């Protein structure tokens, strides 16, 4: 281990002398502990293979901000246009609210535009009218869409009131395909380790379909329905684990102590359909963005390791690109490699 840590030290020292924007150190988690540490020097702004990044911030608002910055940089660096849309998968719930607020702020400041972004939401309740205050359509409208410049026809949310639910799900898969697949799928994690509504026991290669909600989920959602369990929908349409796995990159937001056990199960234990987020251990490019509280069930060793990498991982959000200054930034970065 000392051999590995000293070579890591070396690597990090070397990293400091290299142009900050162009390199990032990636580690392969499955090699820990004891085994060889697979380290690769990669370009941060190109597709990176075989990487899992665990980003740990101090608190909810910092985690939300980091995630928003990451999404912002990804969109801007992708340079979307009328022939090349950035497809973004989006979650609902309380976890992403802070991230949405920051993204809205970036739009309002003129630093980010959603004009050439296409969105695909993960899920929607079955049986709730679209304009019900707790439907995911309402959530996305009130917390995101109404504040930004996204075109209505570029947003896609499953219709939980469709006459033929499975046909609706199949059509959704086709829409994702037609849009060229998902560039970045942002999701959360349930207390039972589920991604979207892929409840424990869901197939890890599942596609968009109708799911019956687990009791854990219904209990967690009751607070949005006046605490009345009878009012909470029992079924939902959801993208499958396989659907999200198809995305070129996945970002999972995990904040709060109540998600800590699920995070532990998702990344420190094996791939298991009872904790469906664990499937992303086998995704080529995943980012887990957490706050301190969410790491409470992880090994101290794991947390220290990834916290140590924050210096490197922060290069992904610093410099922070803006559509205002994008041209200036680009030319400056080639002339002046050192930002400090």
């Amino acid at each position, binding site marked *: 281990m000392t051999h590995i840590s000293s070579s890591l030290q070396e690597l990090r020292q070397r990293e400091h002398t290299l142009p900050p924007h162009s390199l990032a150190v990636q580690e392969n988690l499955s090699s820990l502990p004891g085994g060889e540490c697979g380290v690769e020097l990669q370009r941060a702004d190109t597709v990176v293979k075989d990487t899992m990044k665990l980003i740990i911030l101090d608190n909810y608002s910092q985690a939300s901000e980091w995630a928003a910055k990451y999404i912002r940089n990804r969109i801007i660096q992708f340079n979307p246009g009328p022939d090349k849309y950035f497809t973004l998968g989006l979650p609902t719930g309380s976890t992403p609210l802070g991230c949405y607020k920051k993204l809205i702020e970036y739009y309002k400041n003129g630093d980010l535009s959603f004009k050439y972004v296409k969105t695909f939401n993960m899920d929607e309740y079955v049986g709730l009218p*679209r*304009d019900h205050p707790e439907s995911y*359509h*309402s959530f996305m*409208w009130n917390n995101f869409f*109404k504040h930004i410049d996204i*075109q*209505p*026809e570029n*947003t896609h949310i499953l219709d939980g009131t469709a006459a033929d639910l499975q046909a609706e799900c199949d059509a959704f898969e086709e829409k994702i395909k037609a849009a060229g697949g998902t560039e970045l799928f942002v999701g959360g994690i349930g207390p039972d380790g589920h991604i979207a509504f892929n409840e424990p026991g869901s197939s890890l290669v599942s596609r968009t379909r109708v799911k019956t909600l687990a009791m854990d989920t219904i209990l967690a959602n009751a607070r949005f329905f006046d605490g009345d369990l009878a009012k909470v929908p029992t079924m939902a349409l959801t993208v499958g684990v396989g659907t999200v796995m198809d995305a070129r990159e996945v970002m999972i937001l995990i904040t709060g102590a109540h998600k800590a056990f699920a995070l532990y199960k998702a990344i420190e234990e094996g791939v298991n359909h009872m904790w469906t987020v664990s499937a992303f251990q086998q995704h080529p490019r995943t980012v887990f963005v957490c706050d301190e509280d969410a790491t409470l069930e992880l090994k101290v060793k794991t947390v220290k390791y990834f916290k140590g990498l924050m210096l490197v991982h922060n290069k992904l959000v610093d410099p922070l690109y803006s559509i205002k200054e994008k041209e200036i930034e680009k030319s400056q970065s080639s002339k002046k490699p050192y930002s400090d």
Partner: protein
Amino acid sequence: MRGGQVAARAPVIQFTNCRILRGGALLREDLWVRGGRILDPEKLFFEERRVADEQRDCGGCILAPGFIDVQINGGFGVDFSQASEDVGSGVALVARRILSHGVTSFCPTLVTSPLEVYHKVLPQIPVKSGGPHGAGVLGVHLEGPFISREKRGAHPEAHLRSFEADAFQDMLATYGGLDNVRIVTLAPELGHSHEVIRELTALGICVSLGHSVADLGTAEEAVQSGATFITHLFNAMLPFHHRDPGIVGLLTSDRLPAGRRIFYGMIADGIHTNPAALRIAHRAHPKGLVLVTDAVPALGLGNGRHTLGQQEVEVDGLTAYVAGTNTLSGSIAPMDTCVRHFLQATGCSVESALEAASLHPAQLLGLEKCKGTLDFGADADFVVLDDSLHVRATYISGELVWQAEEARP
């Protein structure tokens, strides 16, 4: 026209950078308008997949439903109770001038007058939608002549009436018909008043109690027969007494029909009601308070002598008296002044003050689905106010119909 298909092709206007009064709260939301109505932007986004055609920045102002004045006797030299040759022009003049006060709908009020005046004037004041020409006419408010002699206030004694045996027919004959009539103020202690109240209520006309010496019991019976409003609370009625609260007691009466709310007009000009009395009423029954101007023709004219009904009035500053007496003769405070004074005197929330001038009068008249509210589907009649509740602009059916000088380009 506000038909479905025509409306769907109309441009969508999004009023941004504002706070709107909705659901009793000032929300940091945009107001969307199409085809003269308030539009649901979420529905537009998800169902029609459309965005706004035009955005208008409101500079951080408050957008409130347009004010509704259910008691206004005239203004700018126009006297609704005078059988002039061209009543229509007079109404139109007032309708246009009150736009600057934030009023988008009103009930022209006729005080106690001789039969000839009713017969001549009433047919010339039809219900009319508002627009760039002026505020909408919701119907006429007939204040009298079936009122108490003792509490006639500024009304001419010679033309007071009581009900004959066939009371409702007597009333019809007096007014010459009830087309265009929206509110009738009468004194319930008059004989046969109950059958009149019932008939009027059945016709959808709002019955208001006022200019009366009724005790609480009589007033409660009148409400049970259908009365829903009190004309300028405290004025022209018996004062509150702890063993017989009179009409004022209706505010906290437990003998009103279930589910019925009593509304009461208040002239919050700082003169007609002592602020302490205003506060007592407001605290006792905040949801029933309706701000009215009870404005006289002298509104907007300045100091001097002017005509009201069959009498002369003297204007001095913000006060108008029956010439040569100390009897108040209606107010000359514009509606927005009343709203500001009400806010300051009661210390209530901005939302409450605005609702007292918009939502409550709409509820009184059963119009709350389309007037007095910024809910989806309602008529887009609204007023743009700064933080001190001064009117910056007035809109009717989503169209700008008045704008303050400084705001004009």
